[in-house]
């Protein structure tokens, strides 16, 4: 019953977010600040993880292919497919649910605890529009971070080939170029946009409607991470079923 109540409340929050828009001159600054906090501030960790996980995928694939009938370029092909289809859009989104999601929940939750949200409401500001809408718009740039993750994941695989000598770099590049289906990129970016919306709104929901004090802010951050991850995994399944099958 609580889950159904929360789902209803979540959709009402989304509807309220679009009412009584904040002045554009103020909103513009909020969006730029959120782009800095949520996207630019995450590029470092996204780049680091993508590069090394791309390398690990390459090493694992290379080490598990011992059949001489399987061509060596398959390592590059498998890395590209793993990175573009799942690792960059889905795995990075789960990491972002931890990094960006907990930041959003704790910052909005702290504003709730310290009555800053009440202060906005008393002034006649639509606090949902003021706090959540800029995050949704900022995360429209999330595909930019995912593009970097894709590029660095594949580059990490190439670096693993170069330094580890599992397959030649030429073979790896050939595999990366083999049987490329442009729709796979479309599929990955559609997923990314959907996950971005979940990343902006679910943590905001848990921060905005939290009750209590500092301890509850921590609990709300944990709950928001769990539910954002669950929703991303479920959406991933549904979108894959709809777009690829």
């Amino acid at each position: 019953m609580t889950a159904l109540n929360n789902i209803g409340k979540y959709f009402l929050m989304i509807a309220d977010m679009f009412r009584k828009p904040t002045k554009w001159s103020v909103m513009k600054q909020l969006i730029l600040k959120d782009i800095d906090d949520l996207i630019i501030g995450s590029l470092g960790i996204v780049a680091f993880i993508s590069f090394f996980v791309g390398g690990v995928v390459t090493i694992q694939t290379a080490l598990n292919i011992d059949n001489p009938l399987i061509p060596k370029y398959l390592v590059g092909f498998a890395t590209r497919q793993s990175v573009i289809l799942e690792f960059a859009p889905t795995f990075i989104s789960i990491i972002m649910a931890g990094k960006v999601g907990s930041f959003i929940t704790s910052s909005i939750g702290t504003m709730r605890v310290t009555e800053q949200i009440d202060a906005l409401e008393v002034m006649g500001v639509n606090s949902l529009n003021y706090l959540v809408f800029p995050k949704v718009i900022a995360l429209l740039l999330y595909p930019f971070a995912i593009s970097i993750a894709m590029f660095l994941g594949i580059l990490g695989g190439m670096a693993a080939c170069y330094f580890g000598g599992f397959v030649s770099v030429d073979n790896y590049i050939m595999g990366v170029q083999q049987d490329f289906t442009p729709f796979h990129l479309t599929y990955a970016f559609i997923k990314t946009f959907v996950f971005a919306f979940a990343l902006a709104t679910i943590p905001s929901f848990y921060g905005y409607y939290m009750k209590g004090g500092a301890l509850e802010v921590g609990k709300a951050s944990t709950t928001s991470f769990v539910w954002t991850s669950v929703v991303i995994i479920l959406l991933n399944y549904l979108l894959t079923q709809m777009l690829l099958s």
Partner: protein
Amino acid sequence: MIEVKNLHKSFGDTHILKGISTTFEKGKTNLIIGQSGSGKTVFLKCLLGLFPYEKGSIIYEGRVYNNLTEDEKRDLRAEIGMVFQGSALFDSMTILENVMFPLRMFTKQSKSEMEDRADFVLKRVNLDGAHHKMPSEASGGMQKRVAIARAIVNRPKYLFCDEPNSGLDPKTAIVIDNLIKEITEEYQITTVINSHDMNSVMEIGEKIVFLKNGYKEWVGSNKTIFKTDNEAVTDFVYSSELFKKVRKMYQDENS
């Protein structure tokens, strides 16, 4: 002036406000006092429109709050200034930006006009030279002054304060109380203060509404509160040894 008629508010099965009727007068500091759990904060939040209420009405100079459209409620809220118990300053903004915030949101003034107005109200609350500090760098008393400056920067008709001197030392508390009283008289604002501080009652309680268990138990002023026979009020007022001594001195003088 704000009129409250037969106000009822419940949370689930718990009936918090049980038919409160009173008026808050313009140009006066109106205090709502009572013990913790008496319904003061809920009453204040109903007045502010933060809590919906089941029965009764709140009338702001002829405007019945529950009959207003969403746009009219928003316009009314723009006439309200609020000082929260914990100041509720925006952490991510400097003191100057906090004070300018209502102007940025609701006026079309240029940046320099907004800065001039913010500078004026910061000077009015005796807070000059702290413009570029962050709220976390300001003391409790300074934060309260900033909150008052933010509340009055848009020239509100109504000023609400939720325990404005809680957590402050007695000297700073009196400064804040007097500042609120001065501003109320100067700008002819209807000020409603939620407090359980007896020093505030004595200093600025021009009209006092005493709440007990969600009922309006007594109405008076700082001049009549020490003379009342109402048992609940005397229990509250003379709960400290200091005020018991004050009463004894008062009785000795009169006998």
